[in-house]
Each structure stands twice: as C-alpha cells, then as structure tokens.
C-alpha cells in the first residue's frame, strides 16, 4: 500500500474503513421485537509508516478478516485524512463434503459477504428450490451453516445466490450489483440408507449472551435479591417438562417459601399482547442455615425466558432465570404413504417475534412457516408426504417474524445462519434447528 504526495517525514497511520454489524431490537415496549440490522461505520488502524523524502509512504498489511466488497483505506496524518484508496475483499464459498448418502450434513461456508444493501444476504437454492437465506451481520461477513443432502441418488445442484431481499436475485448480473458473484456446486447423493436419526443443531454457545442473566426488556422481570442471596437452576435451560435442580443460599433460615414460576400469558382483553403471570409450583422450606435445594419440574409452557421465584407471601425473595428451549415432541408416523399426512409436534415456542415461529423446509425446499399462537408454546405441523418412495427430510429452522429493515429482509423465511448470527443471541435466546426425516412409501 502506497500513499503519495504526502509531507516528507510525516508519520501517517493507515486506517481500514469497515462497519460493525448488530441487530437492533425493541425491548422497551415490554415485548421483544426485532427491528433491523444496524451497520455502524468504523475504522481500524492497520499500521503506521513514515513519509519518505519523495512524499511517499509504503506499508504492507494482510487483508483483515472482514466484510466483503470495497473498503476505503485512509492515510491519516495529524488527525486528518491525507490520502484515500480502497481494497476489495472478494466473496468466496465452499461446500463440504461433495458426496454422501441422503441426510449427509453439508457445511456451507461463505466469506466476504458485505454489509451494504444487496451485498449482505444470499439465498440457497438446492436443485433450484429456495431453501432459505444466510446472513453475516455480526460475523463480519462470514456465514457458516449446514443443510442436508436430499433427493434420490445422483447429482444435485447447490447454488448460493446473491439475494435482493433474502430472495435470490436471479439476474443480479444485470443490476447495479452485477459485481456480486454466484456459486454453483454439485453434490452427489450416493445412496438412500433410510431416514437418518433426528438431530438438533444448537446455537453456537460462545456467541450467545450468558444464560441465567436478567433479560433486558422482557416482560418476565426478575427481582433483585438482597445481598448474599443467590439462586440458580441447573441446568439453567432446557425444554418444557424437563427437570432442573434449584440451589439457593442466603435465604431466611427454616422458612417456608413459595416456589413460583414466572411466565407470561395472553392478555384476555387483547390476545395479541402478553402480560406477566405467575404460577405456584410448590412450597419449599429452607435449611436452618438458609440454604435450599429443590427439584423443579419445568412446566409445559411457552418457551423463552422465565424464572423460578422464591417468595414469602407476596414478597419476592430471589429469582433464578430459566430459558426454555424449543423441543420436538414427536413425528408421527415415521413411515408415511405417499399423499398421507404426518404430524410434527413442537413445544416451547416462545412469545416474542424472535422465538415464536419456525420455518420449514421439505427436502431443502421452503414450504411455509408456523407461528405459535395459542398461548402454550405448541406448534403442530401437519404435512403431506410427497416426493415418491424413500427418505425425505424435514428441517425446522428459526425465523424472524417481521421487522423494519431498510432493505427488506427474510421475514418468515428459514434463517440458515441462526447458529452464529441470530438477532436474539444478544438477549440469550438459544434457538435450534431440528433435523427430522420420514420414509415415504407408495
């Protein structure tokens, strides 16, 4: 990198222009809503150089691991921009593996996704069927996710396509964004060995806010305990009807306390709204030294953030937050005649626009979405078996129900990169994808 025409002897700093990506959420209204992606411009120092006698400053740097497309590079001296250049990070994509039986997880990696409109989202086409979109808002342009090999033995196409609004913009080469590349791959399905076992793709725990923390903005408000009082659930997250161990200390000695479940319920006067609610689980008694250990049966409830509360009468004593994960209860039947229906039951769907719905693909083709609406976190998917004899895959992905992105985004579409780049992660939401399968018979 060379800057010319500078003042000899001056020290210049080279700065890399980029942006920090984040998700703006509305947590102030008592609900938790996704609003939009926010990219805040910023600069990163690359290094310094001294201008030589010819007014030239030269430096070498490695391209940062960053968003794709053009980044301005500034030479800054004495706090002022004295020269400007640019560097383009190209988009690159791989899939792995490239062959395997039906159900093989295919890891797709894309680097160099941008942060500007039309540069920041891509769609996945499997045999020309739209299967969802990828994002790289908080991952600095890198998207890593999985789909599964589907269809009869033979070659199948996987196309990673630039997306205008999360939907592939098929002739983008004729648009103002013609510079964006598309990627075509062939995956060979080698065999159909029958339905693979169900699996759950969980969120990348290293990227999510720590569970057991008080949730900002959520309706389920935890209380501030008196000094020395603590309460935790182990585990602090799990599905409906799971068990957790409550451990507390610093409590009043030998006291009988109410063990309450903090939740939300649909407002009877406005079913679209949710209001705080409390359910009594049981009564417990602390030890003479103010400790408590109790088994807690997590209720069958809406998913998301809750808390178990120890209370003395009307007074809250201490809370232990709990995150209820979504879970698949059943897929029935597993062997389905062509044209017959099968049912997938899911529990623990949440009450916010971040976690109340799922987007569903069938053999990697998006077929629809489901929003939990009846107030108990249940989602029942009744689907029809299609596609001929053999194994067929159903993948259930997180989604964003709606938002106000300046450039329309993938509302209600499969959020393929949920594990690393989902809006709810900053609030501790831990959403999973469910990988399911059936065998279709004629």
């Amino acid at each position, binding site marked *: 990198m060379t800057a010319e025409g500078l003042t000899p002897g001056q020290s210049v700093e080279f700065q890399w222009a980029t942006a920090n990506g984040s998700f703006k959420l509305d947590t102030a209204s008592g609900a938790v809503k996704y609003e939009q992606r926010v990219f805040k411009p910023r600069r990163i120092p690359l290094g310094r150089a001294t201008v030589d006698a010819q007014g030239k400053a030269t430096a070498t740097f490695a391209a940062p691991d960053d968003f794709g497309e053009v980044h301005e590079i500034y030479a800054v001296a004495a706090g002022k921009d004295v020269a400007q250049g640019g560097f383009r990070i190209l988009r690159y994509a791989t899939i792995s593996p490239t062959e395997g039986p039906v159900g093989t997880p295919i890891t797709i990696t894309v680097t160099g996704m941008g942060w500007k409109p039309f540069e920041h989202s891509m769609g996945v086409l499997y045999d020309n069927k739209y299967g969802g979109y990828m994002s790289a808002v908080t991952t600095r342009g890198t998207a890593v996710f999985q789909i599964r090999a589907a269809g009869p033995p033979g070659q199948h196409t996987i196309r990673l396509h630039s997306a205008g609004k999360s939907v592939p913009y098929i*002739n983008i*080469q004729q648009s103002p964004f013609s510079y964006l590349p598309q990627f075509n791959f062939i995956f060979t399905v080698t065999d159909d060995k029958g339905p693979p076992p169900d699996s759950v793709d969980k969120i990348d725990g290293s990227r999510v806010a720590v569970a057991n923390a008080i949730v900002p903005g959520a309706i389920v408000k935890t209380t501030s305990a008196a000094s020395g009082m603590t309460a935790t659930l182990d585990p602090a997250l799990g599905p409906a009807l799971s068990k957790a161990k409550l451990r507390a200390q610093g409590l009043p000695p030998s006291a009988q306390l109410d063990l309450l479940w903090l939740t939300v319920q649909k407002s009877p006067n406005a079913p679209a709204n949710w209001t705080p609610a409390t359910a009594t689980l049981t009564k417990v008694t602390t030890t003479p030294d103010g400790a408590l250990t109790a088994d807690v049966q997590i209720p069958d409830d809406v998913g998301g953030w809750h808390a178990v509360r120890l209370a003395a009468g009307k007074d809250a004593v201490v809370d232990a937050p709990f995150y209820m994960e979504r879970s698949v209860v059943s897929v029935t039947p597993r062997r389905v005649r062509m044209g017959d229906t099968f049912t997938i039951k899911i529990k623990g769907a949440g009450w916010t626009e971040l976690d109340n719905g799922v987007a569903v693909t069938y053999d990697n083709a998006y077929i629809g979405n489901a929003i939990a609406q009846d107030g108990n976190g249940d989602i029942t998917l009744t*689907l029809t078996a299609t596609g001929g004899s053999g194994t067929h895959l159903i993948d259930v992905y997180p989604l964003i129900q709606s938002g*106000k992105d300046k450039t329309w985004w993938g509302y209600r579409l499969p959020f393929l990169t949920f594990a690393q780049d989902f809006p709810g992660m900053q609030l501790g939401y831990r959403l999973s994808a469910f990988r399911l399968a059936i065998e279709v018979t004629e």
Partner: protein
Amino acid sequence: MRPTQALGATRKAISSLALIGLLGLSLVMSAAAPLSVARDDQQGATPSRSAVTLSPARGPIGSITTLRGNGFAANASLDVLWQDWDGSWDASGGGFKARVYKERMTPLTQVRADASGAFEARVEVPQGFGFEHQIVVAQGGERRATSAFFVEMQARMTPQNGPPGTLITMELKGVGVQPRERDWVVLYDNQFAGWMSAVTTNGTATGVITATGGPGRHILEVFQGPYFPDLNAAHSPDPARPTWTFEFTVTDGQAILPPPPEQQGPKPIAGAPPKDAKGPVVWLDPASGYVGMDVTVRGSGLPANADVRLDWQTNFGPDPVVAGGIRAHASFPVVTGKTAADGTLRATFKVPEDVGRVHPVVLMAGEQSLATGEFKVRPKANFITPASGPVGTDITINLKGVDDTDTGKIFIITYDNAWTGYACSVTSQGDITIHIPASGKPGWHFINLYPGMYEPVGGQGMFSYEVYDNMEEFYIFRVPQLTYLADHPNEKDIPAFRFAFFVTGETK
C-alpha cells in the same frame, strides 16, 4: 345471495321496477311459487325488536339457506341486503400501495312480512367473496335486523391427470377480503409454487401451474397464508381456515411442451389513425408489440416532401428503487424518411431494445416537432438455450421488453413449481437474462416466469414501510402471482412465460 322463493304472507305479482333490479341479481325464479316482492303501503307499525336468522348460517357459493324474520311490522315490505365489496388494487404511480375493498350493500330481494310480522325466504348464496357477510333486513331505508352468513371457500383442480407439462388450473371460489382470508398459496410436492389473489375478480382466483415430476402421483395443496403457508393452522386463532389437498397423476406419455418462446405473450395490437384527426398526425401500426418487430409509422397532414425523423422517447439508468437517483429522460431517432407530396408518411423501423411501457414518439423535421404518437412495448420471451443437457448445465433464458414499473418489472421464477427467485428488468432496459443450473432427474423440467410485485412504494416512488405498517401487506412481494391473468395489480397484459428443459442422463 339469490332469493329462490319468498314465502311472505302477501303474494303479489312482481313489479316491473323490482324485476329490473332483481334480474341484475340473477334471480332464481320458482315456477311453483312466484316471487312475492312488491311495494305495499299498507304496513303496520314497526315493532321494537326485529330479528332474522339464517339456517344454515354457512355454506358455499350456490348453496341454499333459509332466511327467517320476525318482529317486523305486520305486512311490512322489507328489503333484504347482502354485504358485498368492490375490490381494487391501488397501484397509482406504478407501484403497489394497497388493496381497497369498498363495501356495498347489494339489494337481494324484497319480502313481505305476514300479519304477525314474520317472513321466510329461501335464497341461494351468490358468486362473490367468501367468509362472513352480513345480511341486513331494512324497512324504508332503515336497518331493522341483521344476521351473518359464512360463505365457505371452495377449491378445484383440473384436470386430475396428464403427461408432464400438462397445465393444471387451480380455482378458488369464495376468497375473502380480510387479511387472513384473501391470500392463498399453492404447494406442489411440498414446494412453494405461488400465491393466489382475488381482489378484482369478486372472490374467484384462478391460477395455472405446470405438471412436473416423474410418472405417478403428485400432491397439490392450497393453504391460507400471507406469503407462505401457515403450517400451524391447528393452533391458529382462526382454525376455520380451510386447506385442500389434491392429487395429480403424471401419466406416461409424450410431454406437453410450452409454445415456442416467440409464440408466447400478448399479441400485437393494430394501430389506427387518430379519430377526427385534423392537421399533422402520426400513428404506429401495430400500436403495441415487441422489441425487434417491424413497425410502420404512418402520418398524414404533414408538410409535403419533407425530410423527417421519428424520435423514440424513453428513460435510461439504474433502477432508482434499488440504486437511488432517477432514470434520465432520453430520445433517439429510430427511422428517417421523406413525406410524400400529399403530406403522408410511411416508413418502417424495428422496435428498439427498451423497457416495456408506452413510449412516446415524436416526428421531427429538423428541430421542429410535427406530430406525436406512441408505441407500447410489451414483454416477450426471446429464447431458452440450450434445450437439453445434464445436471448442472447452464440454462439461459432471455426476455425482452419487460416493464419498468414496480408491479411490472420483475418476473418470479419457478423450477418444477418450486420458487427459485426473481429477476428484474429496469437497469438492463427491459432485458432479463437468467442463468439456471439444470437440476432434477433425467426428463423434462419446466421453468415458469410469473408476474409479481417487487415491493411497495411511497410517494417518491421509493420503498416504503408505510404500506407495511399495518402488517396486512407484508408478504405479497417477490412471490409468483399465479392469478396475474385476471387480477394483476396494475398492468393487465403481462403474461407468464413457460419454458421446458430436458435433463439428460449423462454426468456433467
């Protein structure tokens, strides 16, 4: 709702005035029991509590229900009104703004209460929008009683079988007007095939998809859903939303291939001289057609033996909706010639590559404008190439003359009835070229390009969330509008284009 028989206490011959009105309502006459609807001034005082009931209170279009009323004035002549709507798209300015349903109360019939203030009438549910309708019984223009009738939706698929490429018609009747009633979507073998609307078609939605896949049974499903099927209907706040499942059997036999590209799309419309033309005029024949076709410019009343040129007007530049700015106005000559001694003109030119829309043309003599005319460019399918190849083959499809409005500039692509994405025409001046890798089993595969809407626009022609704010129109953009033919929001002559590609067995 059409009355089939009125059983009021007083039966009189139908008046000519009532007859005119009722014929417009597709009155179903009963020979055994002539309809008794006539004006009568001999009415008693109106009781305070009038009521009507319907039995049954729900049914499909064409079903019969019985309307019973009581508590009306003795011998009163009553008007029975049916809540209905006139649907329209607000696409002023070339972009979607809203769906508009203007409510109206349609007179169904007149009935006469008996001496006790009661009446009974059998009526047939009329064609129209579905879901809940209010039936109002009025006397002298005043509402006396209401009851609700729920019009059940119906769905039909025809035919039930055929070889690959068979065009399958999906018809919905009784589509509603409310947000969770008016958008319906079609799945083909669990692939999203498109969206059906019935805004301007009085509740009837008709869409056509292509039979694809290997021989055997294939499943078509119709779901309610803005944008995509609501798969959680069992737990929906409106569990009454129906779904339908149909089986289509792809038979062995010769595939039915779509017409060659050049035979698809709207036919050219012949041009004609302006009526009552006085002075210099020009007109184009045809007046509407395709990029590259021959057009004859004709004129009369022009200066004799004058050297003239025809300037074609358009706009150039990137799509302002995605790139900002404006498309610059441009004008360029498409043909030059010389007028005849009698002041007439006849010259031929080829329609230039341009966006679909009405393009003004100006006949110029030097810098003097002599007369203006116009030509409407319509979309055309140009080519698909190659016609066959193994999986992974780059299939190239080209369209010309695609419109530049937000409701006309995109085509939404399906591959074997699976939603693939969209393509836009504006920056490329009406040209759409798409590349699709061939996929699927060896055999014929079908690629359809449907009209649809890009996104809602605000006052400046730019993207606007104002339309979205009510959330009712959040999800109807960039999806295939299967009902484009009769219910397109704006342009009424944008076709769907259908192509076929043969996947060969070899490995690429």
